Every structure is written in structure tokens, then in C-alpha cells.
């Protein structure tokens, strides 16, 4: 665990403080905390994009930079459109994302290897990031018993998960000559997709819904962290944890 002392590092630390603030401040202030997180996350993304001169999605650190922005937008949409105050639970998710960004992941800039220089790079990674945020929120909404909102979030999350998986497969065919390589990360992504496919078969059973949404979030966490960072699962996506 290291403290990043450059300008980007301080912005990332501010993001952690704001997500902590959102967790503990009264309801009236929480909306304003999220309203501050969005421009802050956008500034961090732009700064990183300019510094590295490519879309910031090359590794886990850069992919995680998108999550606070997406999470902030979805929390505020939920608050204004549906009157569901999920800001505290979303802040927990925000903290889980912001903490490793500020103190754990290596922020050293790097160049894009040839395999990542593709028009499919941004839609594939962004599709997964949107899907992960939506599916994590589906779980939090289910915890708060907003069943319909959870179902809607899960449906959109599943759609983006399908899109990202299919785009990755098509990209694999263009880059490596095969649309399925039995790569560990591909396998875990498929396993996650199958969990959510199972979820849509048991929509009316509350215990199953809750268990499958929880299992799905656990799989997402394992896919983005353990599979990327562990040396056990070396494969075609090994550069992602660098």
C-alpha cells in the first residue's frame, strides 16, 4: 500500500475521502458528495488520458478509473428518476473501487502493446465496466428490496455483459485467430454470464434472486482482481493486471 504523491494521486485520495464522506454524512449532504465525485472522476480520467496518450483502459488501475464516474451517474439517475436513495450503499461500492485506485494499484504509465491497438478496445472494456457497475447496483438495490429497480439494472447489466463478451470474442478472432481461447479470464467471464443467465430463469423466487445476484457480484470481484493479479491464471489477458 503506497500513497501516490503526484497531482493525480491527490485527486484519487480526494475521491476516497468523498466516498467515505458519502458513507457517513447525513442524507442531505450525500447527493452533493456524489455531485462532486462526478466532475472529480471526469477530471482524473481526462488527466490520465492526456498523460498516457491512449484511452485509459490498459490495466486494472486505468479500467477502475471509469467506475466512480459510472457509479456516480447511475446513483444520481436512480435518485432523481426513481426517488430511490441508494447513495450510501453506492458509496460503499465507490469506496471499494476508490481505495485500491488511490493506495493499491500501480499507476505507472505504459504504452499500448500491439494487441490492444484495436477499434474494439474501448467498447469491449467500457462495456464490461458499465455491466459491472449495473450488476453491482442490482445487488445493492435487491438488498434494499427495490426488486423492480434491481431487475431493470440486472437486465441492462446483462445486456452490456453480453455485448462486451461478444465483442471480446470477435476481437480475439481478429487478433489471435480464434474467437474462444479457453483463456482463464474468458472462462471466468463466461461463468459470470451464466450466473446472470440463471438469474433470469428464477426472477420470481426471492431467495434465488438474492443468492444469484450475490454470487454474480462475487464472481465479478474475483474476475477483476484475483484472475488479473494472481500468477495462477496466466493467459492471453495477463497484461491486464500489469
Amino acid at each position, binding site marked *: 500500500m503506497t500513497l501516490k504523491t503526484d497531482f493525480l494521486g491527490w485527486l484519487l485520495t480526494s475521491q476516497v475521502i468523498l466516498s467515505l464522506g458519502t458513507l457517513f454524512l447525513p442524507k442531505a449532504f450525500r447527493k452533493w458528495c456524489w455531485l462532486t465525485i462526478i466532475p472529480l472522476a471526469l477530471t482524473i480520467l481526462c488527466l490520465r488520458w492526456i498523460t498516457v496518450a491512449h484511452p485509459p483502459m490498459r490495466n486494472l488501475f486505468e479500467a477502475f478509473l471509469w467506475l466512480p464516474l459510472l457509479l456516480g451517474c447511475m446513483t444520481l439517475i436512480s435518485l432523481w428518476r426513481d426517488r430511490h436513495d441508494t447513495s450510501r450503499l453506492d458509496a460503499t461500492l465507490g469506496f471499494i473501487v476508490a481505495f485500491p485506485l488511490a493506495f493499491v494499484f500501480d499507476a505507472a504509465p505504459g504504452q499500448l502493446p500491439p494487441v490492444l491497438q484495436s477499434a474494439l478496445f474501448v467498447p469491449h472494456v467500457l462495456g464490461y465496466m458499465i455491466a459491472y457497475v449495473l450488476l453491482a447496483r442490482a445487488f445493492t438495490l435487491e438488498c434494499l428490496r427495490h426488486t423492480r*429497480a434491481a431487475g431493470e439494472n440486472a437486465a441492462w447489466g*446483462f445486456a452490456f455483459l453480453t455485448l462486451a463478451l461478444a465483442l471480446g470474442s470477435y476481437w480475439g*478472432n481478429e487478433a489471435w485467430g480464434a474467437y474462444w481461447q479457453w483463456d482463464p479470464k474468458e472462462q471466468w467471464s463466461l461463468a459470470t454470464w451464466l450466473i446472470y443467465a440463471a438469474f433470469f430463469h428464477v426472477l420470481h423466487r426471492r431467495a434465488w434472486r438474492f443468492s444469484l445476484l450475490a454470487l454474480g457480484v462475487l464472481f465479478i470481484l474475483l474476475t477483476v482482481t484475483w484472475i488479473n493479479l494472481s500468477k495462477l491464471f496466466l493467459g492471453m489477458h495477463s497484461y491486464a493486471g500489469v
Partner: protein
Amino acid sequence: MVMKRFPFLSESTRRLLATMGLLFFSAAAIVFAFPGTRPYLAGAWTNAILLIFLLVLTATGIQALFKKRWLSTFFHLGAALILIGGGLTASHAKEGHIVFTDALYAPIEYRQCLIDGDRVALHSFEIPTYPNGMPRQYITRLAFPEGLRTVKVNAPLRRKGWTYYQMSYQQVVGDYGEPLLNTILTVRKDPGATITFCGYATLILAAFAMAIRETFRRHRAQQQECMA
């Protein structure tokens, strides 16, 4: 009549069985992600399980079609198409590897080969780099009877049903101790890929249609709550 008799299990039981089946495949996907498990993947029992899965998907898709449940039809038939494409790839895809040495004096068999009766020769191989020395791209130029064509990572070359992929490179030492580069290409013909991608497109359409349907349903439910 036949379609009425087909669902011999109740809707609820079938959904539960489908859930168990999907969880089984999810667990299998994870097991085969671990190192050393790949040899157990290729076997008659795997093919048998996937064939049963394909039959169930197709039957469910056709049944949904008769019941005019369009989303279910698209989901199940899309997944069935992916499995059919995968089966065709596993059984009919052809693949070969070419290693060319980028040196003018290299023996001819290191610089050219025959593919479907056409002579394919290496014209050049380049590795442009970033200022820090990291490779920016791998570029192989091949000479075909009709002229020069380029293969790069993420930009494969398609010619007469074959696709040429830039896979890798090697640094080797020549006969006189000089550094040489080998370019490694994969040549592949896959009749299953198009069917699999059609399956993916069907699944994507169905998934987004389901998301839109959920949004409308929720909106309608909210309106009804407001009116009540």
C-alpha cells in the same frame, strides 16, 4: 397437439432445472480455467453434455417460438447457434503456422511456402517501436502472385478463404552470428466462426430487447402505482 404435450414438466420446474444446468456450466467454466485441467476438456463426455445442451436449447427455442415468446426464442436459438458454430470450429477448422526469416540470404524454404497452390513469400518484417523501445506494432509484408499484402496484429489478411494472422516473432542468430528476426504467422480457415458470430448478434439483440422491456414494464408499474 404435439407442442401442447411437449412440456411434460411444469414451467416452474423447467426454469429451476435450467438454472441448475446453467450453474453447472458456470462451475465447469471455472474448473477448466485452472491450469492443468485442459486435457480433461476434450473428451466424448464433454461432447455428449454439449450435445444434450444444444438439443435442450433448440427445443426450448422452438417451443418459445410456437408460444410467440420472441425474447426467449432469440435467446435460446442464439445460444444454440453459438454451440453449432463452436462444434463446426472444433471439427472443421484448419490451421497452420508459418515461420519466415527476414534475411535475403536465408534459404528459400525459410522465406516462402505454398498455400492452396499459390506461392507466398516474405517481402519484409518490421517492428516499429515506441521511444522507450517497446514494440508498437508487428508488420509483415507478404508477396502473393497478385502483389504485396500486409498483415499486422489486429489487422489480419483475408485471401481465398484463408485468414493470415500476425501472431508473434522470434529473435534468432544467423549463421555468421548476426541478429535476425523470424515472423510467426498463423493461417486459418474456420467455417464455424460466422455461425457463432450470428449467434452472438442474436443474443445481443435479445439481451438489449429484454433490458428495454424491463424498463417499460417498470415505468408502467410506477404509473399504475401513482394512479392507485
